[in-house]
């Protein structure tokens, strides 16, 4: 099977500490080579510095007041360093609203994805039914499509579906958070279903057989037995989906016409228009947008990497 095969899933999800240790210490042949490898370190250090340059340049620019860069030039260390650009970008650029929009879109989407995908995964992996493989293929394939393939019909469907103006000020599903949440959810369910079904297949069938004997129905087997056992995989998928949906640029761009409803990732597109050629403010705005993803990475790195390697069918 794929990388999401059960034998992979178990150590990754179940015994994170073991995985973490393995990732840290490197491969088995390591012991015999003790000579310091300067060439390797020089190569890696040079590459690592090159890797950091774009981000470092953004942070550097963001920390310098516009007046100082005008006076000394962008390529100088003259003048002061402070967080004024961040404060200004946040207030002047309406970032509080964008951040709130990101939360309003990301949180419900991730919860819905985990809920629907875990149900679906339970059904196709633990209940035998002849359409299981067909359904799973349909779900997996759906996630691999380029989003632009569905853009026109979805846009028109949402536009033509009338909603009372009390619910939506556009009179349709366009320009609503619901449209973005619905499509984000639909698009991500396939991937999470695929990963979770592999995880669930690896759980012993006796677990639910015993429950069946005790008279537990399908729903109780799902909710009380299988889901708690999937907690590591759910944590990994949850972390991954928060990042995927937070980083989604396309669906809000397509469905949300009002600038003040955009999430941070899509609002990034308007930074240049907003701050013209004030690169210091653009850099600060970019860094504000990067912060949520970087914070999640720092706090939940283990889950994120486990999620990626659990099921990297994600394109």
């Amino acid at each position: 099977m794929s990388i999401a095969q059960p034998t992979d899933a178990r150590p990754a999800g179940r015994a994170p500490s073991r995985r973490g240790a393995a990732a840290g210490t490197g491969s088995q042949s390591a012991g015999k080579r003790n000579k310091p490898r300067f060439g390797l370190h020089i190569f890696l250090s040079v590459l690592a510095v090159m890797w950091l340059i774009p981000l470092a340049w953004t942070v550097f620019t963001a920390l310098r007041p516009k007046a100082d860069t005008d006076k000394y030039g962008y390529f100088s260390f003259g003048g002061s360093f402070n967080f004024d650009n961040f404060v200004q970008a946040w207030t002047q650029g309406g970032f509080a609203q964008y951040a709130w929009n990101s939360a309003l879109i990301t949180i419900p989407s991730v919860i819905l994805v985990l809920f629907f995908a875990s149900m679906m995964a339970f059904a196709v992996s633990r209940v035998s039914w002849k359409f299981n493989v067909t359904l799973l293929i349909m779900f997996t394939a759906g996630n691999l499509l380029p989003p632009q393939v569905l853009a026109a019909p979805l846009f028109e469907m949402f536009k033509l579906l009338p909603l009372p103006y009390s619910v939506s000020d556009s009179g349709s599903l366009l320009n609503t958070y619901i449209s973005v949440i619905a499509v984000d959810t639909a698009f991500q369910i396939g991937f999470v279903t695929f990963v979770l079904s592999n995880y669930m297949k690896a759980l012993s069938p006796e677990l639910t057989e015993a429950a069946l004997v005790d008279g537990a129905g399908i729903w109780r087997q799902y909710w009380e037995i299988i889901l708690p056992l999937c907690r590591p995989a759910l944590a990994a998928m949850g972390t991954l989906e928060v990042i995927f949906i937070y980083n989604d640029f396309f669906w809000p761009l397509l469905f949300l016409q009002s600038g003040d409803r955009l999430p941070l990732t899509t609002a990034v597109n308007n930074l240049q228009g907003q701050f013209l050629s004030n690169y210091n403010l653009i850099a600060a705005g970019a860094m504000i947008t990067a912060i949520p993803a970087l914070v999640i990475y720092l706090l939940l790195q283990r889950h994120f990497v486990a999620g990626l390697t659990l099921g990297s069918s994600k394109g």
Partner: protein
Amino acid sequence: MVGLPTLIQLVLVWIPTLLSAALSFTRWNGLSLDDIKPAGVSNYDFIAQNYPPFWPAVQHNVLWLVFLAVIATPLGLLLAILLDQNIRGTRIYQSIFFTPVMLSLALIGVIWQLFYNRDNGLLNFLLGTAGTPQAVDWFGDSGVNIWAALIAATWRHAGYVMILYLAGLKGVDPTLREAAQIDGANAVQTFFRVIFPAMRPVNVIIIVITVIESLRAFDIVYVINRGTNGLELISALVIQNLVGEGQVIGVGSALAVILLVISLVPITFYLSRAFGKDKEA
């Protein structure tokens, strides 16, 4: 239990895909359903013959794929191999190379724009051309901007490939490596003859990700200039036709179908690998 997720998937993914195919054979301004007129294959004709950005877009998508496949993916693999050895600071290196994977492609576009800027960007300063007439506008000049965008895409893609291959390398049975070394294979032979083939499941995924990413490429070019002036990509042309002045839904849908048909190649390849063995077992 199966019903609701399946319904969501059908209504929001598969039915729109089929509708895209249907709309590609019509002429429609997107206003009222009554305005939909059958158009045969005229949209496809138009795209192939009278739509100047189409063939450049195809070339750019191919270039995107080749660049990721020849530069970014092997770079990620190389990083994984180097970092899989027991070297000091491997965690720090891994974190650095992986950081761009956390960022959205849209944000990557903005960050690299600051780096590539003609007058105030760091690159031209390092090259010593900033402020001179020789300074290159890396994202603006249609002769170089696709390469500049590809480097920005590589920045993210290589880290992604690295982390997947690091996991793949951990999964290779260590006795394979030992056996190869006992047989007198050197490090390079051991890798290409033993380790790399043993990582077949990961290789399949990397191939699929590389192809799909190059078809999905959209965010970076859209942030730079909406996919025009040297940065045409099929995905961007789809959107330009849907939201542009004319709202030529038929043409946009035909482009979407072209994208879909190409995407079916890696998707089928992946599904046959992922599910083929299920049926045997």
